[in-house]
């Protein structure tokens, strides 16, 4: 019976038009905000997709290559007129002529010198070396006839792959109409075979795109990484163990910690300057060598390994240490027998991430001269060598159309290595990870 009950209630604030309009606006803002987040992720993923798609679409063709299948007559008069089978004579012979003659035999109608030269330009410069290698390996070939797959010069390979457009005016493309006609005849004769591009993996670098291969770069990367591994793993683990398990809290260890954190963020090219000034100029170590590259990369990846190693050590519960200490183990025994084995999977992940970083690094290696043009596969740690990323960098600079395809293919090979390494890291972590 009070006033309060009987008085008509004022409209609740959430029932006014004003309020629902505001609410609607707030919910719309909420949805928009969520959309922004999704859009940001979408853009980032789209960029990744575009990047990978552009590399793959430009590069997948490099894994196949058109070869010229020719019936080569290993003419004794040309290779070894005296019949001595002397290796010097064999290696000096004019093998380019063998290939040329074989190609001219397919086109008996080509008469003039200029035309013949244009026709034989379709054979790669490397064909002569391939033929020489065959004869040097097996001198009994001399005098026989054999169908051999020779490298086709890059421009014609690109033409057959459709990377050079036949329909643009003749003056705007590198291949003349006459040469296109020749190629078409070779194709219809069955003289062109398309197969897996073994040269991409078996050859060293070359100025000719059709011959350029990754072997030297892969071996160089392998040697460099071996040096990096050999230095970074023991030093990194030892430093992490010391800092996490033994180090007293003092000025020195503080300094070390600050240093490690800062080194992790120093630009990689500065490590290259260090390598150039200290290892090459002051210590006179060999230029372009995997040793120096490996040391520089090891110094660069050390912070990554130490930081992740410490995290892994920190994750091992103190009870393990206390139990071991309790049965009389020395601090070092605690670490080597109990803590380190348990922390190893976590440390391993850090090591592999560091190695992946080192495998993809280019800038510091440019500084220490690993950009040299290297055809031979390096055979030791002191030999001049190049690595995969540097080879990619050099190929990317080459103007020939054939190198665009090769560069993309080399990138795919490099990414394949990186993905494999990361996959190993994930598997190892899954396999050995222990939850406390």
């Amino acid at each position, binding site marked *: 019976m009070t006033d309060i009950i009987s008085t008509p209630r004022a409209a609740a604030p959430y029932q006014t038009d004003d309020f629902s309009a505001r609410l609607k606006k707030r919910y719309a803002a909420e949805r928009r905000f969520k959309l922004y987040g999704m859009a940001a992720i979408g853009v980032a993923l789209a960029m990744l997709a575009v990047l990978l798609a552009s590399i793959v679409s430009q590069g997948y063709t490099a894994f196949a290559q058109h070869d010229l299948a020719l019936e080569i007559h290993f003419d004794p008069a040309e290779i070894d007129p005296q019949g001595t089978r002397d290796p010097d004579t064999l290696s000096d012979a004019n093998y380019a002529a063998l290939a040329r003659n074989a190609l001219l035999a397919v086109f008996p109608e080509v008469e003039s010198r200029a035309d013949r030269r244009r026709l034989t330009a379709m054979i790669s410069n490397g064909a002569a070396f391939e033929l020489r290698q065959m004869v040097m390996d097996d001198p009994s070939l001399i005098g026989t006839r054999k169908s051999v797959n020779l490298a086709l010069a890059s421009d014609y390979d690109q033409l057959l792959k459709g990377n050079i457009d036949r329909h643009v005016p003749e003056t705007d493309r590198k291949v003349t109409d006459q040469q296109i006609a020749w190629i078409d005849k070779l194709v219809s004769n069955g003289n062109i075979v398309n197969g897996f591009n073994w040269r991409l993996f078996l050859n060293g670098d070359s100025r000719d795109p059709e011959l350029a291969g990754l072997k030297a770069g892969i071996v160089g990367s392998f040697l460099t990484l071996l040096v990096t591994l050999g230095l970074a793993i023991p030093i990194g683990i030892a430093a992490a163990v*010391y800092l996490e398990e033994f180090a007293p809290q003092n000025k020195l260890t503080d300094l070390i910690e600050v*240093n490690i954190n800062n080194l992790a963020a120093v630009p990689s090219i500065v490590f290259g300057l260090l390598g150039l000034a200290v290892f090459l100029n002051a210590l006179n170590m060999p230029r372009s060598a995997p040793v120096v590259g490996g040391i520089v990369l090891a110094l660069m990846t*050390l912070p990554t390994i130490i930081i992740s190693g410490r995290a892994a050590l920190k994750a091992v519960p103190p009870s393990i240490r206390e139990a071991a200490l309790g049965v009389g183990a020395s601090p070092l025994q605690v670490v080597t027998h109990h803590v380190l084995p348990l922390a190893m999977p976590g440390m391993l992940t850090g090591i592999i991430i560091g190695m992946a970083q080192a495998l993809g690094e280019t800038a510091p290696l440019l500084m220490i001269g690993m950009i040299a043009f290297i055809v031979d596969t390096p055979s030791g740690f002191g030999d001049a060598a190049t690595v995969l990323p540097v080879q990619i960098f050099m190929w990317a600079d080459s103007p020939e159309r054939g190198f665009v395809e090769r560069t993309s293919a080399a990138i795919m090979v490099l990414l394949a290595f990186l993905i494999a390494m990361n996959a190993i890291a994930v598997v190892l972590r899954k396999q050995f990870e222990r939850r406390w």
Partner: protein
Amino acid sequence: MSVSLFLAVLAVLSFAGFHLGRSRAVVSAGGRLSRLHSVPSYYGLYVAMWVGLPALMLFALWTGLEGSIVDGMVRSSLPAAMAGLSPQEINLIMVDIHNLAYGNITSRVPDPALLTAAEHYKSLRGIGNGALAVVMLALACAGLYYARQRIEPGLRARNQVEKVVNIFLILCSLVAILTTVGIVLSLLFEAIRFFTKVSPAEFLFGLQWSPQTAIRADQVASDGAFGAVPLFTGTLLIASIAMVVAVPLGLMSAIYMSEYAPPKVRGSVKPVLEILAGIPTVVYGFFAALTMAPFVRDVGQSLGLSVSSESALAAGVVMGVMIIPFVSSLSDDIINAVPQSLRDGSYGLGATKSETIRQVVLPAALPGIVGGVLLAVSRAIGETMIVVMAAGLAANLSANPLDAVSTVTVQIATLLVGDQEFDSAKTLSAFGLGLVLFTVTLGLNIIALRVVQKYREKYD
């Protein structure tokens, strides 16, 4: 003897030492192992250390010094006619002597004096190697004898071994400091040589960068200009474009991932985003130069703008994409560190999720995010391959993102690639630039790390 043979012999000897020490300890205990102070293996390790370490140290010392000692001896034995030559010429002669000794190709027809010097060099190296082998073997044997003598049940072998291991651990942690010292010293040393040729004021404030110096005095365009301001502005331009791309995208994706995304999405999208961080920069450079730059140019031309074929925009955008995961993972950590109670309080007052994020979470996380962004900036400033491949070489003083600009790292890379002589201002200027780059990134890192750390302590 080659290096690997030396080390292999040493390894075999140490291994033998281990077994000798171990068995001797067992024997000396007279069958009751509990009489030993340490476990028998420690006695083995003790002997192995005495066998291996002194010889190894000598070996390291010798490999470090051998080159300069032998060179010095050969140099002093060169015929008097060569003594009057300048240091550079002597160096060339030394290179030829090395090449002759190893049977490589030399730059000149070897004359008899050179041949004898090469022979001398070869014999000195041979003597050095032989002497090293003998001394190392003697050291190893002496170590073996001494350590084996000392083994008795009371020897505190474990403590001794652990002392050595501890020293090794400390030395390994010092590598980080040594690296920093090495970087600072090498940069400073070469940069000071540069600044004796070019004044620091001209370098830091000059508006013209063209490091081509003359080889001959009468050459056209003989005096290089070493004003680095165009490079600084170019670096800043590209870095800011990169940040404009990376910060909003990285931050928004971090917010979505930590606040909105269901665990399944988070679990699958996060590793995919991290692939972006794992792609080598040379790949980004190739992408920027071959796909992004022509795209930017075509779009610009269709809008009627003049875009140079190597624009700052293309390099900056691609660099920004590279940095997205860096920004997002850092902000992700920091956003996750904001305590749930703050969010709950905000929800309790009726705020929506986005309002909570914008008005509670982000302000709380702001210092950490700023620190993360600073780290990203220092990364963008130090990035080399993308800009080497996609930005220009000509140092333009321009703030137009459609122009070609050059950066500090590009100049360092181009100045030092290929053959160089280390007394010209041209090559030394790279170290001056390196010093600036190192100082700036170091300053940014220190500030950023401080900010991040300070912020993180708040909620602990």
